[in-house]
């Protein structure tokens, strides 16, 4: 057997956050190895060709949350990342009506006025409120969350920073901020807008990936989480990574390699090595040991601490807290290769907003009912979907004339109920076909002939996402984004700073603050904490401070 190799740091899992953390560590001069279970890096940010000529962004599909600071630091553009913004979206009704969303303010006002003149002013207030809250929250994303129970000067410092920012908002806005963080997206929208279709269109961002309904408290924050993107300075703007989401991961991998880091794919971590009460490396499936005094796990909190650390190495109360961390599967993905462009008869001719996110949910109550199904262990009979056809603006996604549809579906439970028993094994072929039919029925109702265009399709139930990406229960954020699991509570109260009770074992994925999405924030924050711990701050530290 070859001698066990050793590195300064091993990143267990090559998701986009692992790659980000690895790149920062490599740039700080550490020898870094990323070990990834799958045959490609990227985790939930990958591109694959399942039908020759078509590129699928199998999991995540739109890009905007990616922190611009990270893209700049790691020079992702030079490593090939190109984000193409799209400028709108639409929600259709069965009755042939639609609401088109435009990033252009004027066009949007005209469109709202077309449906509901009274909502023009309400929407303006809504947009202002969201913008203000985004401005407030965004700087927190790349900072560590303070532990309010700690007297450590850094915690006190971060707490003070948070309180000062709150205070700077002014009394009224501070109240609004707290309200925003605690309200449901439905109640929040009800306070601004009357037209059901406009509300339904806007509410979707509050439930994507979340085991909550539009009327569950906390979903207004989830909406905010999705509005955090800023492409070209426009808040809430979204875009496509040219070549699919794998392009983000490829650029991060490029940055990592350029800094001297190594990547091994098809290398599944079976166990984290523990020596003398500290992490000492990893054991791969097959038995190979790789040594490093620092192991940074990109796997979610449950997989890391409950799955990969030998019993006894972590304190019981910590493990209990990890067990309590909620990681619920609630989303499915339907990827479709289309032989031609889908047609929406409600829209005459060509419209740029068809290149954006398309939906067919007509009211908040319809969305709420979709959630009730999930609560009881069924996939939604009338699911919410978020459909994008990136091939309309990115010709690399499908052959000429053909298209690719990326359809995110909410809600689908992880453990499907059957005869009162809930079990992920219930996701058999019939269940999958059932969910697919529920989605396609809704699409067909607003885009007749859609089914006829399907050349190949792939449905990913939560179990599939879990199996393929390693996300527990298929939860897209590596843990619910409810407010009891944000900031200092993420993933476990007292351990929000990427550390764990096992010295040398760190958490760099979305289970950590500030949570999921292709944001690269958790990875970047973790790298900063690690370097600070090693007193190797240097340039990157300064860059963070400036950000």
């Amino acid at each position, binding site marked *: 057997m070859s001698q066990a190799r050793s590195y300064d740091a091993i990143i267990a899992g090559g998701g986009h956050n692992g790659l980000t953390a690895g790149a920062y560590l490599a740039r700080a001069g550490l020898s870094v190895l990323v070990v990834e279970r799958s045959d490609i890096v990227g985790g939930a940010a990958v591109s694959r060709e399942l039908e020759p000529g078509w590129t699928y962004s199998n999991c995540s599909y739109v890009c905007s949350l990616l922190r611009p600071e990270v893209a700049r630091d790691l020079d992702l553009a030079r490593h090939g990342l190109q984000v193409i913004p799209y400028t709108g979206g639409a929600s259709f009704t069965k009755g042939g009506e639609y609401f088109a969303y435009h990033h252009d303010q004027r066009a949007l006002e005209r469109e709202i006025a077309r449906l509901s003149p009274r909502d023009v002013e309400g929407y303006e207030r809504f947009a202002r409120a969201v913008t203000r809250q985004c401005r407030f929250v965004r700087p927190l994303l790349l900072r560590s969350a303070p*532990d309010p129970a700690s007297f450590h000067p850094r915690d006190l410092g971060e707490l003070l920073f948070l309180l000062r920012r709150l205070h700077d908002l002014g009394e009224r806005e501070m*109240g609004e901020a707290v309200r925003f963080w605690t309200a449901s997206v439905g109640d929040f929208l009800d306070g601004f807008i009357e037209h059901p279709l406009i509300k339904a269109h806007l509410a979707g961002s509050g439930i994507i990936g979340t085991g909550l309904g539009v009327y569950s408290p906390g979903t207004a924050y989830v909406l905010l989480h999705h509005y955090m993107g800023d492409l070209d300075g426009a808040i809430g703007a979204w875009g496509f990574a040219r070549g699919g989401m794998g392009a983000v991961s490829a650029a991060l991998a490029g940055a990592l390699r350029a800094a001297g880091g190594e990547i091994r794919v098809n290398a599944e971590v079976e166990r984290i090595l523990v020596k003398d009460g500290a992490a000492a490396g990893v054991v791969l499936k097959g038995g190979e040991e790789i040594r490093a005094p620092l192991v940074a796990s990109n796997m979610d909190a449950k997989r890391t601490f409950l799955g990969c650390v030998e019993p006894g190495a972590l304190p019981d109360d910590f493990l209990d807290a990890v067990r309590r961390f909620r990681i619920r599967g609630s989303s499915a993905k339907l990827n479709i290769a289309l032989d031609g462009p889908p047609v929406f008869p409600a829209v005459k001719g060509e419209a740029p907003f068809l290149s954006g996110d398309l939906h067919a949910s007509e009211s908040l109550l319809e969305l709420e009912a979709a959630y009730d199904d999930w609560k009881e262990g069924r996939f939604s009979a009338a699911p919410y979907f978020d459909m994008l056809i990136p091939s309309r603006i990115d010709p690399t996604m499908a052959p000429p004339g053909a298209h690719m549809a990326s359809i995110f579906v909410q809600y689908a439970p992880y453990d499907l109920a059957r005869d009162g028993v809930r079990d992920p094994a219930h996701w058999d072929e019939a269940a999958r076909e059932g969910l697919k039919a529920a989605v396609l029925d809704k699409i067909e109702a607003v885009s007749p002939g859609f089914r006829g265009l399907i050349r190949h399709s792939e449905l990913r139930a939560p179990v599939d996402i879990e199996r393929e990406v390693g996300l527990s229960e298929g939860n897209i954020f590596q843990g619910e984004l409810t407010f009891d699991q944000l900031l200092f509570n993420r993933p476990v109260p007292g351990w929000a700073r990427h550390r764990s009770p096992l010295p040398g074992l760190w958490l760099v994925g979305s289970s950590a603050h500030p949570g999921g999405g292709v944001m690269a924030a958790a990875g970047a924050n973790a790298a900063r904490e690690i370097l600070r711990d090693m007193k190797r701050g240097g340039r990157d530290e300064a860059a963070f401070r400036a950000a």
Partner: protein
Amino acid sequence: MAERLKAAVIGAGVNGLVAAAALARGGCEVTVIERGAAPGGMMALGLFARGPHPAALEALGLKPGALGPAIPTVALCPSGRHVLVEGAEARFADGSAHPGAERWRVLSRRLDRFAAALAPLLTGAPPPMRLRAEGLPGLLRFALRLRLLGARDMRELLRIGLSNAADLAADALPEGPLAGLLAFDSVLGSRAGPMAPGTVVPLLLRRAPLRRMEGLAARLAAASEGKGARLRLGAGAARILFEDDRAHGVLLDDGERVEADLVLSSLGAAQTLALAGPALFDIEAQRRIGAIRAQGAAARVDLDFAAPPRLPGLDPAHHGARLVLAPSVQAVEPAYDPVKYGRLPALPVMEGRIDGARLSLTVQCVPHDAPRDRIVAATLAALETVAPGLGGEVRHAGALSPADIEAMTGAPGGHWHHGEIALDQFLTLRPANGMARHAMGPPGLFLCGAGAHPGGDVTGLPGLNGARAALEAMR
């Protein structure tokens, strides 16, 4: 010396009565204006009271001991193995040990500690949004008590306070009647299911022992009068009067004018705004008041039998206990879902009490204007799960929907708390952002009802806090 300050309190529910007593004690000449023929407001609908809070009792000059004995809860189970709960102690109703008893005890003690830490936030103004003098002492005491909990408990409180009752139950208790009881108490009176984030908060507000509600309204009214408050029954407030843009008195339905330097309203913020007229409120304040969620979902049902009804497994000795029919978390959550779409659940959850041949119940979750016969039918369907055949023995049944309750008491939406208790309508955001310190709009006008901080139940705290804010403002 100047004349005594005059204060008018609108509404003689628990909070109006406590506010009046506190104002009288503060030196005011107080008139309580009550539309109904008797004081008490929604207390007449309640079966059990955990209050009033000791601070409110003190304002009334009553001793905590005077409230009568605490009563136990029996968590009913369709299997007939009901669970008897007395505070932190739980056992089967037949006296045998319950396998979840130790976990119930641990959880109860933990919630008690957390509630004690929270207490300073409830008995005064809610924490200020800016560092200002008024709310600061409460906030500092809260911060201190939080620290005194120790890092572990403090972290746990900050987590579960933002979490939901269903998860709390799942982590701490075996699924069944005990978990169901916890879930039930987390949403009783609310329009929410235990899976909704924020539902742990009501649990922390409901730690005091339960007592029967009977006679409490009359005693509180007598105590308030004893402190010098004058009760003016049988005529409602028609308008709040202003002079030079400050509150000046109340015009009654019967044309009488009650002059006052301070007007305290125990009605909802929207109802108070309607009495005051919109002219003195800015558009943003009106909008926020309009957006307060107050749709009641609790109904009152009374069932009369020829003889005391028998529930299998329930010892008649426990007829006076609080009976809770919420056999599991799994039963409480779906009882909430249909109400979102204006429908009654097939099996609502409820609490009740047997008095002789009458079974009185508070039933959750009932749509605002559900027909009475349908409420009764759904209630009986649920009761049949623990007492098959009970429905056939009912001689007479009466029900009050939230709409009926609204018509009777004027409570916004007939809501138990005059406004949903949720994190975005709690503390500094109750009843709405900018109004939590009880002052509402023009000088001299204050809120003192369940819709104000810290919310409903028979605590008297909104009344006490409202009166304190009013007295403070006159200094």
